[in-house]
Structure formats: structure tokens, C-alpha cells
């Protein structure tokens, strides 16, 4: 096996390695998304990450998540420089955010609309800073990296009954290979572990981790029951059901195969960076967009995303490899799909598919763009725990 396939990246001052060297333009709060979009039109090379959050919600847990995700994105190893657009009066204002960031070891510009004289003046300054940073970034060169520099997350969304049979099984085989090479692999979606928690707990590295797995899934189950009532056992989308899945346990078993078969080394909170290598679970929600933001905030440089019904979603600054679970989807959305795992049904052995996926992944790590990157299909939103008021 090609154990010594070499990979490269951008080594950051905090010791992490980016596989991209992006300029990120990010708002602290939704109110200034228009400024970010304006910068994006003027500087198309920038990765813009407008979002719907930053204010209007309270509660300690909500604030922890808000600041963890914003700072995680700014500090992200795939981000070489950042322009932060604030408003001034928002909960996630830059006066609170910046001390949490500390020295990020990369060029950073911070502009507040209420201080700069409005949206147009802020955008003009931000455009200037963005152009300057891009020149600096262009001078950076890739260096050799190790597999153990990587945190690869695996996600599934818009699943069908094939997802758990083809795509997730194939992604799981790649996950095992990554862990064996020294990388960290993370998957989350705690609601999609309900009914399969005992299978994961059996694979926990010790009793403490087994307890964390059980606690996480019990909490997810309680929340699901509270919200869904009598329909809780069928908490899967109409699309999932049309695809042939009948219960959440069936969906969950098909979901957790995407993490592979290696021991579960730890459970980390939403957006929290794992401290151990190997397979790690994130205590985060099943909704793809929120889940990916947690992985990104934790510092995932790369994601796999399997889909059966077909979603084009990518993520700002993070390459997302889309794996189609069936050939019909692959053909129907070929521009959006990177890998066709549906060919397992047509007789391609799992090992051959895994090796093809690994070769493709290596190219992506080394700079080739995923379909979602090519197409600009970034979405950015993240978990909140309380309704707005």
C-alpha cells in the first residue's frame, strides 16, 4: 500500500498545518453580512463566510458556542489571513472576541461599521486590507506535512438507504486508513447515533470514553423525545423514508459506519479541538451545516461528506469531498459529486473504491480543488441552543 504518499501544506505558528492558504472575510454578526458580500464582489479570491448569528440569543452555552466557532474559523489552519467585520453593539463584538483570539500568528484586520463611518467606508477599508493580505499570502510556499497533522471529519447528509451501504462504508474504509496513518478522524451528529450508542460504546478506548458516549446519546435522545414526542422514533426526514429507511436506529447504524471501525479515543464538545489522535466523536447536531461548522471550528482541514439524495453543500476555507451513494445521483449531479460510491452496486470491490478515494483525497490535500470549492458552494451557519429573543 502507498503508505509513503507525501502530502504538503502550510505550517502555522501554532504548530497546525493548513492544506489551503485562504484569506477569510468573516462578520461577527449577521447585521454586517452586506459588507462582507461587498468585499467578496471586489475581491473574489477571498473566502467570505457570512452567517445568521452573533446577537439576539443569550445563555452561557450559546455564548460559548458563538465565540468558539467565530474564533475557531479565524484561527483555522486553512486560513492564512483574516478580515473581521464587526458592527459595534452586537453580543459577539470584537472587543470581547479579540482577547479570546490572542495572538493568532497571521495577518488580521478588524473593522467595525459603527466606528468606521458606515458600511461603505468599512467595505472600502476591508477591500484594501484584503488586497494587501492576498499579496502576502501569494508569497507562501507549501512544505512537506505528515498525516498526523491532519484532522479529517466525516459527515453524511441527504442520506438514502444506499448511503449506509455504499458511501458511508467506503468513507469508513478511508477513515480506518487515515487513523492507521496517524491522522485524527472525527464524526459527530449525536442524534444520528441514537439506537447505535451501544455499538460505539463497545469500541470506546476506556470506560470513561464509553460513559461520555452514553451520556451524549442519552442527552440527544431526551432532547429528541422532548421535541418530537410520539414521532421521535421516526425522526428522520421524509426524504430518508422515501429512500427506504424506516427507523432512526436503522439510519444511525448506516451513519456510524462512516467513522470506520477503529477504537473511539474521545468525545469532544461541539467545535472543540481533539487532544488525542485516532477516531474521535464530536458532541454536535445532525444538521449538516451546523455539524460541519463544529468540525471546522475544531480545526478540521478536510471533510468527507456522503450523500444519497444529493446536496451540493461545501464549507468556507475547508475542502469538502462529496461522495455519492448511488450512480443515479452521481450522474444527475455530476458537477457536485467528487466520488461515485454507487459503483459498489455495479461490482467494484470496496478496497478498489477506497484506494481510488485515498488517491483523490491526497490530490485534494495537495491543492487540487473539490467540486464544492470549484463551484463556490460554501455554506456557513452554526449551532445555537436557545431561540432568539
Amino acid at each position, binding site marked *: 500500500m502507498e503508505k509513503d504518499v507525501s502530502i504538503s501544506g502550510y505550517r502555522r505558528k501554532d504548530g497546525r498545518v493548513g492544506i489551503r492558504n485562504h484569506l477569510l472575510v468573516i462578520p461577527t454578526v449577521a447585521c454586517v453580512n452586506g459588507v462582507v458580500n461587498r468585499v467578496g464582489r471586489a475581491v473574489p479570491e477571498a473566502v467570505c463566510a457570512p452567517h445568521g448569528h452573533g446577537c439576539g440569543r443569550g445563555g452561557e452555552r450559546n455564548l460559548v458556542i458563538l465565540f468558539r466557532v467565530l474564533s475557531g474559523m479565524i484561527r483555522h489552519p486553512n486560513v492564512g489571513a483574516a478580515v473581521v467585520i464587526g458592527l459595534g453593539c452586537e453580543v459577539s463584538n470584537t472587543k470581547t472576541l479579540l482577547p479570546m483570539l490572542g495572538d493568532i500568528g497571521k495577518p488580521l484586520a478588524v473593522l467595525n461599521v459603527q466606528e468606521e463611518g458606515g458600511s461603505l467606508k468599512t467595505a472600502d477599508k476591508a477591500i484594501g486590507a484584503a488586497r494587501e493580505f492576498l499579496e502576502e499570502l501569494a508569497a507562501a510556499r507549501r512544505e512537506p506535512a505528515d498525516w498526523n497533522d491532519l484532522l479529517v471529519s466525516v459527515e453524511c447528509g441527504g442520506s438514502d438507504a444506499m448511503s449506509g451501504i455504499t458511501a458511508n462504508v467506503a468513507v469508513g474504509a478511508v477513515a480506518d486508513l487515515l487513523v492507521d496513518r496517524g491522522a485524527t478522524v472525527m464524526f459527530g451528529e449525536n442524534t444520528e447515533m441514537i439506537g447505535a450508542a451501544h455499538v460505539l460504546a463497545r469500541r470506546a478506548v476506556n470506560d470513561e470514553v464509553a460513559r461520555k458516549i452514553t451520556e451524549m446519546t442519552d442527552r440527544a435522545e431526551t432532547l429528541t423525545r422532548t421535541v418530537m414526542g410520539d414521532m421521535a*422514533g421516526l425522526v428522520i426526514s421524509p426524504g430518508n423514508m422515501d429512500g427506504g429507511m424506516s*427507523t432512526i*436506529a436503522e439510519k444511525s447504524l448506516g451513519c456510524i*459506519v462512516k467513522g470506520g471501525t477503529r477504537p473511539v479515543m474521545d468525545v469532544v464538545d461541539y467545535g472543540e479541538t481533539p487532544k488525542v489522535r485516532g477516531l474521535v466523536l464530536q458532541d454536535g447536531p445532525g444538521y449538516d451545516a451546523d455539524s460541519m461548522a463544529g468540525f471546522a471550528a475544531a480545526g478540521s482541514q478536510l471533510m468527507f461528506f456522503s450523500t444519497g439524495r444529493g446536496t451540493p453543500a461545501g464549507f468556507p476555507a475547508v475542502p469538502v469531498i462529496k461522495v455519492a451513494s448511488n450512480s443515479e445521483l452521481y450522474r444527475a449531479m455530476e458537477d457536485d459529486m467528487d466520488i461515485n460510491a454507487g459503483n459498489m452496486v455495479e461490482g467494484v470491490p470496496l478496497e478498489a473504491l477506497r484506494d481510488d478515494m485515498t488517491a483523490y483525497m491526497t490530490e485534494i490535500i495537495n491543492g487540487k480543488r473539490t467540486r464544492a470549492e470549484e463551484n463556490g458552494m460554501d455554506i456557513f451557519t452554526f449551532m445555537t441552543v436557545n431561540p432568539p429573543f
Partner: protein
Amino acid sequence: MADSVLVIHENDNVAVALRDLEAGEEALFRGKIFATALERVPAGHKVAICEIERGGEIIKYGEPVGISTAVIPRGAWVHTHNLESGRWKRT
């Protein structure tokens, strides 16, 4: 003959249709006929590969994924009309 179904785990009592199966079509996996479809089974859906008693577990991935609400004959389509979640029973 190409496989028409997938049997994921040796302990499973359902197979997954790889394409739409019409009534009378064989559920074929690696050269073995596991059942003959009694009704239409859409691609991705489950077909019983042995008779499942009322209240019996539906096994896929080698693990229970639901409880049958009726006797399910071999070859029948298995979905929400004849199983319920063993975890949270509907009232």
C-alpha cells in the same frame, strides 16, 4: 446475473433492494436467491428474507432496527407500514 439485493450482515433477516423489484422477481445476492418479492420493493428498501413473526426484531447491519407490527412473510416489503421503532413505540 447481477445482484438484485444486498445482504449486509450474515445475521440480517432483511436484504436491501439494489433496484426496484417487482412482484415475482428474485432477491439475488452473490448467486443465492434469498426470497421472491411478493410485492413491489423500491430500490433502497428492505425485503424480508425469512418470515418474521409479529413483534419480532428486524435485523440489519447485524443489529435490530425495528420491531414488526404484523407477521411479515418472506419476500414482503418491510417499511413503516409493518414495523415500528423498538426504541420509542408509537401509542
